[in-house]
Protein backbone atom coordinates (compact mmCIF):
# COMPACT_ATOMS: atom_id res chain seq x y z
CA UNK A 1 0.00 0.00 0.00
CA UNK A 2 1.74 3.06 -1.14
CA UNK A 3 1.08 6.46 0.14
CA UNK A 4 2.02 8.91 -2.49
CA UNK A 5 3.32 11.69 -0.36
CA UNK A 6 4.24 14.36 -2.78
CA UNK A 7 3.56 16.82 -0.02
CA UNK A 8 5.83 17.68 2.85
CA UNK A 9 4.61 16.07 6.06
CA UNK A 10 1.66 17.96 7.30
CA UNK A 11 0.26 17.76 10.82
CA UNK A 12 -0.71 14.14 11.05
CA UNK A 13 -2.54 14.66 14.28
CA UNK A 14 -5.66 13.32 12.73
CA UNK A 15 -5.37 9.59 12.58
CA UNK A 16 -6.36 7.27 9.88
CA UNK A 17 -10.05 6.95 9.39
CA UNK A 18 -11.95 4.81 11.77
CA UNK A 19 -13.68 1.90 10.22
CA UNK A 20 -12.28 -1.13 8.65
CA UNK A 21 -11.79 0.27 5.21
CA UNK A 22 -8.87 2.61 4.89
CA UNK A 23 -8.36 4.69 1.85
CA UNK A 24 -5.11 3.01 1.18
CA UNK A 25 -6.72 -0.28 0.46
CA UNK A 26 -5.97 -1.32 -3.06
CA UNK A 27 -8.94 -1.44 -5.29
CA UNK A 28 -8.89 -5.08 -6.17
CA UNK A 29 -8.88 -6.42 -2.67
CA UNK A 30 -11.30 -9.27 -2.13
CA UNK A 31 -12.52 -7.54 1.00
CA UNK A 32 -14.53 -5.07 -0.99
CA UNK A 33 -18.21 -5.78 -0.91
CA UNK A 34 -19.33 -5.88 -4.47
CA UNK A 35 -23.01 -5.41 -4.35
CA UNK A 36 -24.88 -4.40 -1.28
CA UNK A 37 -28.04 -3.03 -2.77
CA UNK A 38 -27.59 0.34 -1.12
CA UNK A 39 -26.73 2.01 -4.34
CA UNK A 40 -27.03 0.44 -7.71
CA UNK A 41 -23.72 -1.14 -8.44
CA UNK A 42 -22.15 -0.98 -11.84
CA UNK A 43 -21.58 -4.41 -13.26
CA UNK A 44 -18.28 -3.49 -14.73
CA UNK A 45 -16.82 -0.22 -13.72
CA UNK A 46 -13.35 0.56 -14.84
CA UNK A 47 -12.92 3.36 -12.38
CA UNK A 48 -14.59 1.49 -9.55
CA UNK A 49 -15.22 4.76 -7.84
CA UNK A 50 -18.74 3.84 -6.81
CA UNK A 51 -17.37 0.62 -5.40
CA UNK A 52 -15.04 2.68 -3.34
CA UNK A 53 -17.94 4.82 -2.29
CA UNK A 54 -19.71 1.68 -1.17
CA UNK A 55 -16.93 0.47 0.99
CA UNK A 56 -16.48 3.87 2.50
CA UNK A 57 -20.11 3.98 3.28
CA UNK A 58 -19.81 0.65 5.01
CA UNK A 59 -16.82 1.75 6.89
CA UNK A 60 -18.30 5.04 7.87
CA UNK A 61 -21.82 4.14 8.76
CA UNK A 62 -20.51 1.97 11.55
CA UNK A 63 -19.24 4.67 13.76
CA UNK A 64 -18.06 7.93 12.52
CA UNK A 65 -20.12 11.01 12.44
CA UNK A 66 -19.43 13.69 10.02
CA UNK A 67 -15.78 13.73 9.34
CA UNK A 68 -14.46 17.15 8.51
CA UNK A 69 -13.59 18.23 5.08
CA UNK A 70 -10.04 19.22 5.81
CA UNK A 71 -9.17 15.90 7.28
CA UNK A 72 -10.21 14.01 4.22
CA UNK A 73 -8.30 16.03 1.81
CA UNK A 74 -5.25 15.62 3.92
CA UNK A 75 -5.35 11.93 4.27
CA UNK A 76 -6.50 10.98 0.82
CA UNK A 77 -3.80 9.54 -1.29
CA UNK A 78 -3.69 9.87 -4.97
CA UNK A 79 -1.60 8.98 -7.88
CA UNK A 80 -0.62 11.91 -9.92
CA UNK A 81 -2.79 10.89 -12.85
CA UNK A 82 -5.68 13.29 -13.09
CA UNK A 83 -9.16 12.02 -13.53
CA UNK A 84 -8.16 8.46 -12.82
CA UNK A 85 -9.07 6.58 -9.72
CA UNK A 86 -7.90 8.76 -6.90
CA UNK A 87 -8.91 7.23 -3.62
CA UNK A 88 -11.11 9.45 -1.63
CA UNK A 89 -13.32 9.42 1.40
CA UNK A 90 -16.87 10.55 1.28
CA UNK A 91 -17.74 12.22 4.53
CA UNK A 92 -21.22 11.02 5.30
CA UNK A 93 -23.77 11.84 7.93
CA UNK A 94 -24.46 8.87 10.14
CA UNK A 95 -27.91 8.19 8.76
CA UNK A 96 -27.18 8.54 5.13
CA UNK A 97 -30.50 8.38 3.36
CA UNK A 98 -30.27 5.95 0.57
CA UNK A 99 -30.16 7.44 -2.88
CA UNK A 100 -33.64 7.29 -4.33
CA UNK A 101 -32.57 5.11 -7.25
CA UNK A 102 -34.43 1.87 -7.26
CA UNK A 103 -32.18 -1.07 -6.49
CA UNK A 104 -33.37 -2.86 -9.56
CA UNK A 105 -32.02 -0.29 -11.96
CA UNK A 106 -28.45 -0.30 -13.07
CA UNK A 107 -26.20 2.58 -12.39
CA UNK A 108 -25.18 4.61 -15.31
CA UNK A 109 -21.64 3.46 -15.79
CA UNK A 110 -20.81 7.04 -16.65
CA UNK A 111 -18.56 8.88 -14.25
CA UNK A 112 -18.54 12.67 -14.25
CA UNK A 113 -15.08 14.13 -14.80
CA UNK A 114 -13.95 16.91 -12.53
CA UNK A 115 -13.18 20.08 -14.43
CA UNK A 116 -12.45 22.67 -11.81
CA UNK A 117 -11.75 22.85 -8.11
CA UNK A 118 -11.80 26.09 -6.14
CA UNK A 119 -10.06 26.05 -2.79
CA UNK A 120 -8.97 28.55 -0.19
CA UNK A 121 -6.10 28.57 2.22
CA UNK A 122 -4.85 30.98 4.84
CA UNK A 123 -1.15 31.78 4.68
CA UNK A 124 -1.35 33.17 8.15
CA UNK A 125 0.52 36.44 7.74
CA UNK A 126 -0.06 39.81 6.19
CA UNK A 127 1.44 40.19 2.75
CA UNK A 128 2.79 43.11 0.79
CA UNK A 129 1.23 42.63 -2.60
CA UNK A 130 3.46 45.12 -4.31
CA UNK A 131 6.66 43.25 -3.53
CA UNK A 132 5.06 39.98 -4.46
CA UNK A 133 3.95 41.37 -7.79
CA UNK A 134 7.32 42.90 -8.52
CA UNK A 135 9.49 39.96 -7.56
CA UNK A 136 7.41 36.93 -8.46
CA UNK A 137 7.11 35.61 -11.95
CA UNK A 138 3.72 35.25 -13.61
CA UNK A 139 2.06 37.62 -11.19
CA UNK A 140 -0.19 40.51 -12.10
CA UNK A 141 -1.42 43.15 -9.73
CA UNK A 142 -3.68 46.02 -10.65
CA UNK A 143 -5.01 47.50 -7.42
CA UNK A 144 -7.40 49.79 -9.27
CA UNK A 145 -9.12 46.82 -10.88
CA UNK A 146 -8.88 44.20 -8.14
CA UNK A 147 -7.29 44.17 -4.74
CA UNK A 148 -5.33 40.93 -5.11
CA UNK A 149 -2.29 39.55 -6.89
CA UNK A 150 -3.19 37.07 -9.63
CA UNK A 151 -0.50 34.45 -9.89
CA UNK A 152 -0.34 31.48 -12.22
CA UNK A 153 1.74 28.33 -12.27
CA UNK A 154 2.05 25.85 -15.07
CA UNK A 155 2.08 22.60 -13.22
CA UNK A 156 -0.64 21.97 -12.11
CA UNK A 157 -2.15 24.58 -14.34
CA UNK A 158 -3.87 26.83 -11.84
CA UNK A 159 -4.48 30.45 -10.96
CA UNK A 160 -4.31 31.92 -7.49
CA UNK A 161 -5.69 35.13 -6.05
CA UNK A 162 -3.49 36.25 -3.19
CA UNK A 163 -4.89 38.90 -0.89
CA UNK A 164 -3.04 41.23 1.42
CA UNK A 165 -4.67 39.65 4.46
CA UNK A 166 -2.78 36.46 3.70
CA UNK A 167 -5.72 34.52 2.37
CA UNK A 168 -5.49 32.85 -0.99
CA UNK A 169 -7.94 31.37 -3.48
CA UNK A 170 -6.69 28.66 -5.82
CA UNK A 171 -8.68 27.80 -8.93
CA UNK A 172 -8.33 25.66 -12.01
CA UNK A 173 -7.12 22.36 -10.64
CA UNK A 174 -8.66 19.15 -11.88
CA UNK A 175 -8.49 17.13 -8.70
CA UNK A 176 -8.39 17.66 -4.96
CA UNK A 177 -4.78 16.60 -4.66
CA UNK A 178 -3.72 18.85 -7.48
CA UNK A 179 -5.50 21.75 -5.86
CA UNK A 180 -3.71 21.12 -2.61
CA UNK A 181 -0.39 20.71 -4.35
CA UNK A 182 -0.86 23.89 -6.30
CA UNK A 183 -1.80 25.79 -3.17
CA UNK A 184 1.35 24.54 -1.50
CA UNK A 185 3.41 25.66 -4.45
CA UNK A 186 1.96 29.14 -4.26
CA UNK A 187 2.62 29.16 -0.53
CA UNK A 188 6.20 28.19 -1.20
CA UNK A 189 6.57 31.01 -3.72
CA UNK A 190 5.31 33.46 -1.16
CA UNK A 191 7.58 31.94 1.45
CA UNK A 192 10.62 32.28 -0.80
CA UNK A 193 9.86 35.94 -1.22
CA UNK A 194 10.49 36.36 2.48
CA UNK A 195 7.10 36.18 4.09
CA UNK A 196 6.51 33.74 6.95
CA UNK A 197 3.87 31.82 5.08
CA UNK A 198 2.06 28.93 6.69
CA UNK A 199 -0.55 26.58 5.27
CA UNK A 200 -3.61 26.85 7.43
CA UNK A 201 -7.21 25.76 6.86
CA UNK A 202 -6.95 24.43 3.37
CA UNK A 203 -10.52 23.89 2.28
CA UNK A 204 -12.10 22.99 -0.99
CA UNK A 205 -14.95 25.37 -1.61
CA UNK A 206 -16.37 24.24 -4.91
CA UNK A 207 -16.02 21.41 -7.36
CA UNK A 208 -17.28 21.37 -10.92
CA UNK A 209 -17.79 18.21 -12.93
CA UNK A 210 -19.17 17.43 -16.34
CA UNK A 211 -20.30 14.40 -18.25
CA UNK A 212 -22.28 13.26 -21.25
CA UNK A 213 -25.27 10.96 -21.11
CA UNK A 214 -24.91 10.31 -24.83
CA UNK A 215 -28.54 10.88 -25.79
CA UNK A 216 -30.57 14.02 -26.48
CA UNK A 217 -32.92 15.16 -23.73
CA UNK A 218 -36.40 16.66 -23.83
CA UNK A 219 -35.93 19.66 -21.57
CA UNK A 220 -39.54 20.79 -21.92
CA UNK A 221 -40.76 17.52 -20.46
CA UNK A 222 -38.27 17.72 -17.62
CA UNK A 223 -39.29 21.22 -16.64
CA UNK A 224 -42.96 20.22 -16.65
CA UNK A 225 -42.54 17.34 -14.24
CA UNK A 226 -39.82 18.76 -12.02
CA UNK A 227 -41.09 22.29 -11.81
CA UNK A 228 -40.06 22.93 -8.25
CA UNK A 229 -36.43 22.11 -9.00
CA UNK A 230 -35.93 23.18 -12.60
CA UNK A 231 -35.71 26.48 -14.34
CA UNK A 232 -35.67 26.48 -18.13
CA UNK A 233 -35.78 29.84 -19.86
CA UNK A 234 -34.48 29.54 -23.41
CA UNK A 235 -34.40 33.32 -23.63
CA UNK A 236 -32.01 33.55 -20.72
CA UNK A 237 -29.89 30.41 -21.00
CA UNK A 238 -30.08 27.46 -23.38
CA UNK A 239 -29.71 24.87 -20.65
CA UNK A 240 -32.05 23.72 -17.94
CA UNK A 241 -30.90 24.67 -14.42
CA UNK A 242 -31.77 21.87 -12.02
CA UNK A 243 -31.25 22.60 -8.34
CA UNK A 244 -31.09 19.28 -6.57
CA UNK A 245 -31.93 19.41 -2.88
CA UNK A 246 -30.07 16.36 -1.71
CA UNK A 247 -27.19 16.60 -2.31
CA UNK A 248 -27.21 20.32 -2.78
CA UNK A 249 -25.89 20.49 -6.31
CA UNK A 250 -26.81 22.61 -9.28
CA UNK A 251 -26.90 20.79 -12.59
CA UNK A 252 -26.93 22.42 -16.00
CA UNK A 253 -28.62 20.04 -18.39
CA UNK A 254 -28.42 20.65 -22.10
CA UNK A 255 -30.39 19.34 -25.04
CA UNK A 256 -27.34 17.57 -26.42
CA UNK A 257 -27.12 15.38 -23.34
CA UNK A 258 -24.20 17.11 -21.72
CA UNK A 259 -24.55 17.74 -18.01
CA UNK A 260 -22.50 20.10 -15.84
CA UNK A 261 -22.61 19.62 -12.07
CA UNK A 262 -21.39 22.27 -9.68
CA UNK A 263 -21.63 23.38 -6.08
CA UNK A 264 -20.08 20.29 -4.55
CA UNK A 265 -17.75 20.33 -1.61
CA UNK A 266 -16.67 16.73 -2.06
CA UNK A 267 -16.34 14.49 -5.06
CA UNK A 268 -18.99 12.10 -3.80
CA UNK A 269 -21.69 14.72 -4.03
CA UNK A 270 -21.08 15.08 -7.75
CA UNK A 271 -21.28 11.36 -8.28
CA UNK A 272 -24.33 11.03 -6.11
CA UNK A 273 -26.10 13.87 -7.88
CA UNK A 274 -25.37 12.35 -11.25
CA UNK A 275 -26.61 8.96 -10.14
CA UNK A 276 -29.80 10.63 -8.96
CA UNK A 277 -30.40 12.52 -12.16
CA UNK A 278 -29.48 9.79 -14.61
CA UNK A 279 -32.69 7.75 -14.36
CA UNK A 280 -34.72 10.94 -14.61
CA UNK A 281 -32.87 11.94 -17.75
CA UNK A 282 -33.33 8.50 -19.21
CA UNK A 283 -37.05 9.02 -18.83
CA UNK A 284 -36.85 12.15 -20.97
CA UNK A 285 -34.74 10.78 -23.74
CA UNK A 286 -35.70 12.05 -27.17
CA UNK A 287 -37.05 9.18 -29.17
CA UNK A 288 -36.41 10.43 -32.71
Amino acid at each position, binding site marked *: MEQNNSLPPFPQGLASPQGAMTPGLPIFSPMMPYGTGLTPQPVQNTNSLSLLEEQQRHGMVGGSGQTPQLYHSQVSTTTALPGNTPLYNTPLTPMTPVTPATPASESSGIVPQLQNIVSTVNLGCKLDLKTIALRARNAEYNPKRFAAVIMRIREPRTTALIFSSGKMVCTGAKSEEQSRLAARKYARVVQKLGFPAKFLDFKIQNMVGSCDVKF*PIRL*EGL*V*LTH*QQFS*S*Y*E*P*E*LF*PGLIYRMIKPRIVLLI*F*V*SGKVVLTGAKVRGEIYEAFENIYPILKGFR*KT*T
Partner: protein
Amino acid sequence: MASTSRGDSLPKVQCPNHPDAILVEDYRAGDMICPECGLVVGDRVIDVGSEWRTFTNEKATKDPSRVGDTQNPLLNGGDLTTMISKGTGAASFDEFGNSKYQNRRTMSSSDRAMLNAFKEITTMADRINLPRNIIDRTNNLFKQVYEQKSLKGRSNDAIASACLYIACRQEGVPRTFKEICAVSRISKKEIGRCFKLILKALETSVDLITTGDFMSRFCSNLGLPKQVQMAATYIARKAVELDLVPGRSPISVAAAAIYMASQASAEKKTQKEIGDIAGVADVTIRQSYRLIYPRAADLFPPDFKFDTPVDKLPQL
Protein backbone atom coordinates in the same frame (compact mmCIF):
# COMPACT_ATOMS: atom_id res chain seq x y z
CA MET B 1 -86.06 44.91 2.34
CA ALA B 2 -84.19 42.64 4.58
CA SER B 3 -80.79 43.21 5.99
CA THR B 4 -80.56 40.25 8.24
CA SER B 5 -77.47 40.27 10.32
CA ARG B 6 -76.83 36.81 11.52
CA GLY B 7 -74.42 37.75 14.22
CA ASP B 8 -71.42 36.97 12.03
CA SER B 9 -68.60 39.39 11.94
CA LEU B 10 -70.02 40.72 8.68
CA PRO B 11 -73.72 41.33 8.59
CA LYS B 12 -74.92 39.31 5.66
CA VAL B 13 -77.43 40.81 3.36
CA GLN B 14 -79.69 38.39 1.59
CA CYS B 15 -82.87 38.41 -0.35
CA PRO B 16 -85.81 37.22 1.79
CA ASN B 17 -87.20 35.03 -0.97
CA HIS B 18 -83.92 33.60 -2.19
CA PRO B 19 -81.52 33.34 0.71
CA ASP B 20 -79.01 31.40 -1.33
CA ALA B 21 -78.82 33.79 -4.21
CA ILE B 22 -75.66 35.78 -4.52
CA LEU B 23 -76.55 39.44 -4.65
CA VAL B 24 -75.41 41.52 -7.55
CA GLU B 25 -74.00 44.85 -6.65
CA ASP B 26 -75.02 47.77 -8.74
CA TYR B 27 -72.68 50.43 -7.65
CA ARG B 28 -74.09 53.10 -9.83
CA ALA B 29 -77.13 53.38 -7.68
CA GLY B 30 -75.62 51.84 -4.59
CA ASP B 31 -77.97 48.86 -4.59
CA MET B 32 -77.66 45.17 -3.96
CA ILE B 33 -80.04 43.35 -6.25
CA CYS B 34 -81.19 39.74 -6.08
CA PRO B 35 -80.65 38.16 -9.49
CA GLU B 36 -83.52 35.73 -9.10
CA CYS B 37 -86.37 38.05 -8.50
CA GLY B 38 -84.90 41.49 -9.01
CA LEU B 39 -85.60 42.67 -5.51
CA VAL B 40 -83.46 45.55 -4.37
CA VAL B 41 -82.16 44.18 -1.11
CA GLY B 42 -79.86 46.82 0.27
CA ASP B 43 -79.67 50.36 -0.82
CA ARG B 44 -77.70 53.31 0.36
CA VAL B 45 -74.54 51.26 -0.03
CA ILE B 46 -71.60 53.58 -0.29
CA ASP B 47 -70.56 54.08 -3.85
CA VAL B 48 -66.89 53.39 -4.12
CA GLY B 49 -66.66 53.95 -7.81
CA SER B 50 -65.05 56.96 -9.31
CA GLU B 51 -66.35 60.33 -8.58
CA TRP B 52 -69.49 61.40 -10.28
CA ARG B 53 -69.49 64.35 -12.55
CA THR B 54 -71.98 67.09 -12.38
CA PHE B 55 -72.67 68.96 -15.54
CA THR B 56 -73.74 72.42 -14.57
CA ASN B 57 -73.89 75.53 -16.57
CA GLU B 58 -72.43 77.63 -13.85
CA LYS B 59 -68.80 78.08 -13.35
CA ALA B 60 -67.39 74.66 -12.79
CA THR B 61 -64.36 75.67 -10.79
CA LYS B 62 -65.89 74.30 -7.65
CA ASP B 63 -67.52 70.93 -8.05
CA PRO B 64 -69.28 70.16 -4.80
CA SER B 65 -69.82 66.49 -5.49
CA ARG B 66 -66.14 65.68 -5.60
CA VAL B 67 -65.38 62.88 -3.19
CA GLY B 68 -61.81 62.09 -4.04
CA ASP B 69 -59.93 59.54 -6.05
CA THR B 70 -61.16 56.03 -6.70
CA GLN B 71 -60.68 53.73 -3.81
CA ASN B 72 -58.16 51.07 -4.62
CA PRO B 73 -58.61 48.75 -1.67
CA LEU B 74 -56.87 45.77 -3.18
CA LEU B 75 -53.65 47.52 -3.66
CA ASN B 76 -53.32 50.35 -1.22
CA GLY B 77 -54.17 48.75 2.04
CA GLY B 78 -57.11 50.97 2.73
CA ASP B 79 -55.88 54.39 1.97
CA LEU B 80 -58.25 56.77 3.63
CA THR B 81 -56.22 59.89 3.86
CA THR B 82 -57.19 63.45 4.15
CA MET B 83 -55.70 66.04 1.93
CA ILE B 84 -55.90 69.69 2.64
CA SER B 85 -56.36 71.69 -0.48
CA LYS B 86 -55.06 75.16 -1.09
CA GLY B 87 -57.09 77.67 0.73
CA THR B 88 -59.09 80.48 -0.75
CA GLY B 89 -59.70 83.79 0.82
CA ALA B 90 -57.34 85.91 2.83
CA ALA B 91 -57.52 83.96 6.05
CA SER B 92 -55.70 80.98 4.71
CA PHE B 93 -52.48 82.85 4.20
CA ASP B 94 -50.23 83.68 7.09
CA GLU B 95 -47.70 86.52 7.01
CA PHE B 96 -45.05 86.26 4.33
CA GLY B 97 -47.72 85.15 1.95
CA ASN B 98 -47.27 81.44 2.55
CA SER B 99 -50.36 79.41 2.92
CA LYS B 100 -51.12 77.96 6.28
CA TYR B 101 -51.94 74.30 6.44
CA GLN B 102 -49.27 73.25 4.08
CA ASN B 103 -50.02 69.65 4.55
CA ARG B 104 -50.67 68.64 1.04
CA ARG B 105 -47.93 66.19 0.71
CA THR B 106 -47.76 63.22 2.94
CA MET B 107 -50.25 60.60 1.98
CA SER B 108 -49.76 56.98 2.93
CA SER B 109 -46.01 57.32 3.26
CA SER B 110 -45.62 53.64 3.90
CA ASP B 111 -46.90 52.79 0.46
CA ARG B 112 -45.38 55.69 -1.35
CA ALA B 113 -42.82 53.45 -3.04
CA MET B 114 -45.57 51.05 -4.04
CA LEU B 115 -47.66 53.82 -5.54
CA ASN B 116 -44.62 55.02 -7.41
CA ALA B 117 -44.07 51.55 -8.76
CA PHE B 118 -47.70 51.30 -9.86
CA LYS B 119 -47.26 54.52 -11.75
CA GLU B 120 -44.11 53.15 -13.36
CA ILE B 121 -45.87 49.93 -14.28
CA THR B 122 -48.70 51.82 -15.91
CA THR B 123 -46.21 53.93 -17.85
CA MET B 124 -44.32 50.88 -19.08
CA ALA B 125 -47.46 49.03 -20.01
CA ASP B 126 -48.80 52.01 -21.90
CA ARG B 127 -45.75 52.09 -24.08
CA ILE B 128 -46.54 48.65 -25.45
CA ASN B 129 -50.31 49.02 -25.23
CA LEU B 130 -50.97 46.36 -22.66
CA PRO B 131 -54.59 45.95 -21.57
CA ARG B 132 -55.91 46.74 -18.13
CA ASN B 133 -56.06 43.14 -16.96
CA ILE B 134 -52.32 42.68 -17.39
CA ILE B 135 -51.64 45.92 -15.57
CA ASP B 136 -53.87 44.81 -12.72
CA ARG B 137 -52.15 41.47 -12.53
CA THR B 138 -48.77 43.17 -12.53
CA ASN B 139 -49.87 45.44 -9.71
CA ASN B 140 -51.04 42.47 -7.71
CA LEU B 141 -47.80 40.62 -8.24
CA PHE B 142 -45.82 43.67 -7.25
CA LYS B 143 -47.85 44.09 -4.12
CA GLN B 144 -47.26 40.47 -3.13
CA VAL B 145 -43.53 40.75 -3.75
CA TYR B 146 -43.32 44.07 -1.95
CA GLU B 147 -45.11 42.80 1.12
CA GLN B 148 -42.97 39.72 1.27
CA LYS B 149 -39.86 41.88 1.49
CA SER B 150 -37.62 39.05 0.35
CA LEU B 151 -36.46 41.08 -2.65
CA LYS B 152 -36.23 44.31 -0.72
CA GLY B 153 -32.73 45.17 -1.83
CA ARG B 154 -33.52 45.09 -5.51
CA SER B 155 -34.47 48.17 -7.42
CA ASN B 156 -38.22 48.66 -7.49
CA ASP B 157 -38.12 49.33 -11.21
CA ALA B 158 -36.43 46.01 -11.82
CA ILE B 159 -39.05 44.21 -9.75
CA ALA B 160 -41.80 46.07 -11.55
CA SER B 161 -40.39 45.13 -14.96
CA ALA B 162 -40.06 41.50 -13.93
CA CYS B 163 -43.64 41.52 -12.60
CA LEU B 164 -44.80 42.92 -15.91
CA TYR B 165 -43.01 40.11 -17.71
CA ILE B 166 -44.54 37.48 -15.44
CA ALA B 167 -48.02 38.99 -15.79
CA CYS B 168 -47.82 38.87 -19.57
CA ARG B 169 -46.73 35.24 -19.37
CA GLN B 170 -49.45 34.31 -16.94
CA GLU B 171 -52.12 35.88 -19.11
CA GLY B 172 -51.00 33.75 -22.02
CA VAL B 173 -49.58 36.58 -24.09
CA PRO B 174 -45.87 36.49 -23.29
CA ARG B 175 -43.59 39.34 -24.21
CA THR B 176 -39.93 38.67 -24.83
CA PHE B 177 -37.41 40.01 -22.33
CA LYS B 178 -36.14 42.33 -25.00
CA GLU B 179 -39.59 43.82 -25.48
CA ILE B 180 -39.81 44.54 -21.77
CA CYS B 181 -36.29 45.96 -21.86
CA ALA B 182 -37.37 48.34 -24.57
CA VAL B 183 -39.88 50.02 -22.28
CA SER B 184 -37.86 49.78 -19.09
CA ARG B 185 -34.56 51.29 -18.04
CA ILE B 186 -33.41 48.01 -16.50
CA SER B 187 -31.05 45.64 -18.30
CA LYS B 188 -32.19 42.26 -19.53
CA LYS B 189 -29.81 40.56 -17.13
CA GLU B 190 -31.28 42.28 -14.11
CA ILE B 191 -34.86 41.65 -15.23
CA GLY B 192 -33.97 37.98 -15.74
CA ARG B 193 -32.48 37.76 -12.26
CA CYS B 194 -35.46 39.43 -10.64
CA PHE B 195 -37.77 37.20 -12.64
CA LYS B 196 -36.21 34.06 -11.23
CA LEU B 197 -36.18 35.51 -7.72
CA ILE B 198 -39.83 36.49 -7.87
CA LEU B 199 -40.89 33.07 -9.10
CA LYS B 200 -39.07 31.59 -6.17
CA ALA B 201 -40.45 34.08 -3.66
CA LEU B 202 -44.04 33.71 -4.77
CA GLU B 203 -43.64 29.99 -5.37
CA THR B 204 -45.34 30.15 -8.73
CA SER B 205 -44.22 28.95 -12.07
CA VAL B 206 -44.95 29.99 -15.61
CA ASP B 207 -45.58 27.98 -18.74
CA LEU B 208 -42.85 27.49 -21.25
CA ILE B 209 -42.95 29.89 -24.18
CA THR B 210 -43.88 28.48 -27.57
CA THR B 211 -43.29 29.79 -31.05
CA GLY B 212 -46.97 30.48 -31.66
CA ASP B 213 -47.20 33.02 -28.82
CA PHE B 214 -45.35 35.65 -30.81
CA MET B 215 -46.53 35.03 -34.33
CA SER B 216 -49.46 37.38 -34.44
CA ARG B 217 -47.53 40.25 -32.92
CA PHE B 218 -44.42 39.91 -35.06
CA CYS B 219 -46.34 39.36 -38.26
CA SER B 220 -48.64 42.30 -37.78
CA ASN B 221 -45.71 44.53 -36.90
CA LEU B 222 -44.13 43.48 -40.17
CA GLY B 223 -47.35 44.00 -42.06
CA LEU B 224 -47.66 40.45 -43.28
CA PRO B 225 -51.07 39.15 -44.36
CA LYS B 226 -52.96 36.51 -42.46
CA GLN B 227 -52.00 33.66 -44.77
CA VAL B 228 -48.34 34.30 -44.25
CA GLN B 229 -48.85 34.50 -40.51
CA MET B 230 -50.73 31.22 -40.47
CA ALA B 231 -48.08 29.62 -42.64
CA ALA B 232 -45.31 30.85 -40.38
CA THR B 233 -47.12 29.50 -37.31
CA TYR B 234 -47.50 26.15 -39.00
CA ILE B 235 -43.86 26.07 -40.10
CA ALA B 236 -42.58 26.89 -36.63
CA ARG B 237 -44.79 24.30 -34.98
CA LYS B 238 -43.80 21.64 -37.46
CA ALA B 239 -40.12 22.47 -37.09
CA VAL B 240 -40.32 22.02 -33.33
CA GLU B 241 -42.32 18.80 -33.68
CA LEU B 242 -39.82 17.32 -36.10
CA ASP B 243 -37.05 18.47 -33.77
CA LEU B 244 -35.14 20.23 -36.53
CA VAL B 245 -34.02 23.00 -34.20
CA PRO B 246 -32.99 21.42 -30.90
CA GLY B 247 -31.83 23.86 -28.28
CA ARG B 248 -32.77 26.99 -30.23
CA SER B 249 -34.77 29.68 -28.51
CA PRO B 250 -38.41 29.67 -29.65
CA ILE B 251 -38.05 33.32 -30.65
CA SER B 252 -35.28 32.50 -33.10
CA VAL B 253 -37.27 29.62 -34.55
CA ALA B 254 -40.30 31.86 -34.91
CA ALA B 255 -38.21 34.50 -36.66
CA ALA B 256 -36.77 31.93 -39.07
CA ALA B 257 -40.24 30.58 -39.79
CA ILE B 258 -41.52 34.06 -40.53
CA TYR B 259 -38.59 34.58 -42.84
CA MET B 260 -39.30 31.37 -44.72
CA ALA B 261 -43.01 32.06 -44.99
CA SER B 262 -42.53 35.63 -46.12
CA GLN B 263 -39.92 34.63 -48.70
CA ALA B 264 -42.32 32.10 -50.14
CA SER B 265 -45.09 34.65 -50.38
CA ALA B 266 -45.47 37.92 -52.20
CA GLU B 267 -44.37 40.06 -49.23
CA LYS B 268 -40.73 39.25 -48.84
CA LYS B 269 -39.07 40.56 -45.70
CA THR B 270 -35.35 40.69 -45.18
CA GLN B 271 -33.67 39.02 -42.25
CA LYS B 272 -32.70 42.41 -40.90
CA GLU B 273 -36.29 43.62 -40.79
CA ILE B 274 -37.47 40.48 -39.04
CA GLY B 275 -34.51 40.67 -36.68
CA ASP B 276 -35.39 44.24 -35.75
CA ILE B 277 -38.97 43.35 -34.92
CA ALA B 278 -38.24 40.15 -33.09
CA GLY B 279 -35.17 41.36 -31.25
CA VAL B 280 -33.09 38.58 -32.79
CA ALA B 281 -29.76 39.05 -34.50
CA ASP B 282 -29.91 38.35 -38.21
CA VAL B 283 -27.11 35.80 -37.94
CA THR B 284 -29.30 33.92 -35.49
CA ILE B 285 -32.15 33.91 -37.98
CA ARG B 286 -29.69 32.67 -40.56
CA GLN B 287 -28.56 29.82 -38.32
CA SER B 288 -32.08 28.68 -37.54
CA TYR B 289 -33.11 29.10 -41.16
CA ARG B 290 -30.26 26.85 -42.25
CA LEU B 291 -31.58 24.19 -39.91
CA ILE B 292 -35.12 24.26 -41.25
CA TYR B 293 -34.29 24.85 -44.90
CA PRO B 294 -33.56 21.21 -45.84
CA ARG B 295 -37.07 20.12 -44.83
CA ALA B 296 -38.79 23.22 -46.18
CA ALA B 297 -41.15 21.24 -48.38
CA ASP B 298 -42.57 19.35 -45.39
CA LEU B 299 -42.94 22.42 -43.23
CA PHE B 300 -45.35 24.45 -45.30
CA PRO B 301 -49.07 23.98 -44.70
CA PRO B 302 -50.72 21.93 -47.42
CA ASP B 303 -52.98 24.71 -48.63
CA PHE B 304 -50.36 27.40 -48.97
CA LYS B 305 -50.23 29.48 -52.12
CA PHE B 306 -46.62 29.80 -53.13
CA ASP B 307 -45.51 32.98 -54.74
CA THR B 308 -41.99 31.62 -54.83
CA PRO B 309 -41.82 27.84 -55.02
CA VAL B 310 -40.01 25.90 -52.38
CA ASP B 311 -36.93 25.15 -54.46
CA LYS B 312 -36.47 28.84 -55.22
CA LEU B 313 -36.36 29.82 -51.56
CA PRO B 314 -33.17 31.70 -50.70
CA GLN B 315 -30.46 29.49 -49.41
CA LEU B 316 -27.96 31.06 -47.05
